[in-house]
């Protein structure tokens, strides 16, 4: 194994500093007692307390959460269906076009997605609000879901489904009882991906939102334009900790499960 030479150490330090210094500063200043963001005046947690009383932020957080849950659920259903067709249906007319179009939103500039959705909603006379934000988020995040799910389906053993049919399942119950439980981890991670995409989306939400449907990123963005307040630092720190806890828990659970599985497989060979 390679040792940590001075070069490696420096590279590592710079890399991490580049990634995390901004966040560390933000977290540190969220505990600043001064109202001025750039002047340190002692440790305090008062901004967290104030945050709890800021109705505008709490409302925005609630809107964001609802949008994220609903839109990621819709995206997961649509994305999984699209993945099934792409992986399973074999060759059909327009398959290449279809698969290309599924992945296009991945590389499409968000401004364009947002603008075209806005034009659509205006065109069909849909009042903008939570509902339109949900639709917009489901639209752009379903392609992420279908990428995740179709890569799982590509390695899925088709004979499992045939076995289910052979044992008396209809096509639908074979999917529900066998395919879905097996690909569930991919579907869930697709949902989580869609959920986080929706949580932090600013561009598309600001195009498609209307009165009474201000999401948290929009709220933060507009608040910052009036000047960065320590309250926003506190809010951001909370968001960072929630995400960090989520990611760390998920990776610990995955790690533990795979270790347990390996141990069980070893045990199975010995018996």
């Amino acid at each position, binding site marked *: 194994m390679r040792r940590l030479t001075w070069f490696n150490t420096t590279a590592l330090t710079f890399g991490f500093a580049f990634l995390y210094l901004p966040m560390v500063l933000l977290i540190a200043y969220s505990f600043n007692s001064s109202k001025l963001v750039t002047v340190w005046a002692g440790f305090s947690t008062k901004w967290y307390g104030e945050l709890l009383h800021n109705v505008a932020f709490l409302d925005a957080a609630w809107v964001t959460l609802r949008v994220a849950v609903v839109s990621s659920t819709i995206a997961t259903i649509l994305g999984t269906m699209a993945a099934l067709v792409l992986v399973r249906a074999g060759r059909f007319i327009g398959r290449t076009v279809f698969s290309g179009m599924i992945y296009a939103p991945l590389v499409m500039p968000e401004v364009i997605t947002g603008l075209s959705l806005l034009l659509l909603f205006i065109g069909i006379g849909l009042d903008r609000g939570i509902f339109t934000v949900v639709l917009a988020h489901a639209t752009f995040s379903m392609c992420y879901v279908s990428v995740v799910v179709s890569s799982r389906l590509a390695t899925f*053993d088709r*004979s*499992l489904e*045939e*076995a*289910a*049919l*052979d*044992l*008396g*399942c*209809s096509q639908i*119950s074979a999917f529900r*009882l*066998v395919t879905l*439980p*097996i690909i569930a981890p991919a579907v869930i991670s697709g949902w989580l991906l869609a959920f986080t995409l929706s949580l932090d989306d600013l561009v598309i939400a600001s195009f498609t939102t209307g009165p009474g449907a201000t999401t948290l990123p929009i709220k933060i963005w507009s608040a910052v334009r009036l000047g960065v307040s320590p309250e926003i630092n506190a809010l951001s720190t909370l968001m960072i900790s929630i995400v960090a806890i989520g990611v760390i828990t998920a990776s610990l659970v995955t790690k533990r499960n795979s270790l347990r*599985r390996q141990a*069980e*497989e070893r*045990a*199975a*060979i010995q*018996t």
Partner: protein
Amino acid sequence: MSEKIFEPWNDPNEKPLIQFQNVTKRFGDFVAIDNQSFDIYAQEFFALLGPSGCGKTTLMRMLAGFEAPTTGEILLAGQNMAPIPPNKRAVNMMFQSYALFPHLSVWENIAFGLKRDKMPKPEIEARVDEMLKLTRLEQFAKRKPHQISGGQRQRVALARSLAKAPKLLLLDEPLGALDAKLRQDTQFELMDIQEKTGTTFVIVTHDQEEAMTVASRVAVMDHGHIVQADTPARIYEMPNSVYVADFIGDVTILKGTASPRDGGYDIHFAEGQPALHAKSDIELSKGAACYLAIRPEKIAISADKPEGVANAVQGKILDIAYLGNISTYHVELPTGQVIKTQTANTRRLSRRSFTWEDQVWLSWTDTAGVLLAG
């Protein structure tokens, strides 16, 4: 002897369980099964044997309902199977990959098909317990598929496919994933279970030894055709073609021309070699091209020219393959042909009589070889 020999295919009164009637299956331009008609009888252990791509898996998948014949009909107990989807057929299949449901326990895997039939709970429990007992899996009922060994998985797959008591069980390379020793034990276990349950088994395999061991009849396939379907003994001793003779077991095939003599034929196979003689029922005109197929264990090897035998040729030992219980000698004739012979090693290695480059005589009777039309 009052015991009846199990040979329903020779009994004209017996009704076949499965009938293939002029079945053809095409995938695009590729003809996987070419106009085949044959019958499988109840309680048979029928093996489809052939190299990969010969169409044996396609035949099996048509029985399961995963593929439909392009033309022709498949009848199960007299009923046309075409309109019946896989989940409504009294046919179950054991998959090559076992296809065990990884998220379900052994018990739930076996109960899966029964639950789909809406069988009452106590009956399901009784049936699953019975299957667990049959396959000796009682103590693994609560385990998940990844928590048991390969041999146990194979038995779960078998138990699951037998649980619904199908009229016909299809086995797709059922022992392919097991190591040689376990495979042999499992072959006997399969035969045992087949006998106990009285289910008709159709097995697909590319392993001729496996087919010969387990099956009541073996169908040797090549390029979408069943070349010969018969008992293992007849397939081995009376192959109907060079392909079957060559595919099953070890054999030496000599090409020559026939001339009738004494209820058999003289076979001229090389300039300067005496004609070989073989008894045969087949009709060959004088000078017709023919093949003589001789199994190595039917050829005797000796240092001196044997007296009073139908066929004797001299040659030089080219190769010796020592397999422990038997040795195979490759003997080259002065005219270039190589004949394989086998002897049982009844003596210890140090006392063996022949070695490389020895001049030896090979001899066999006039009924040892099989004469095939060219």
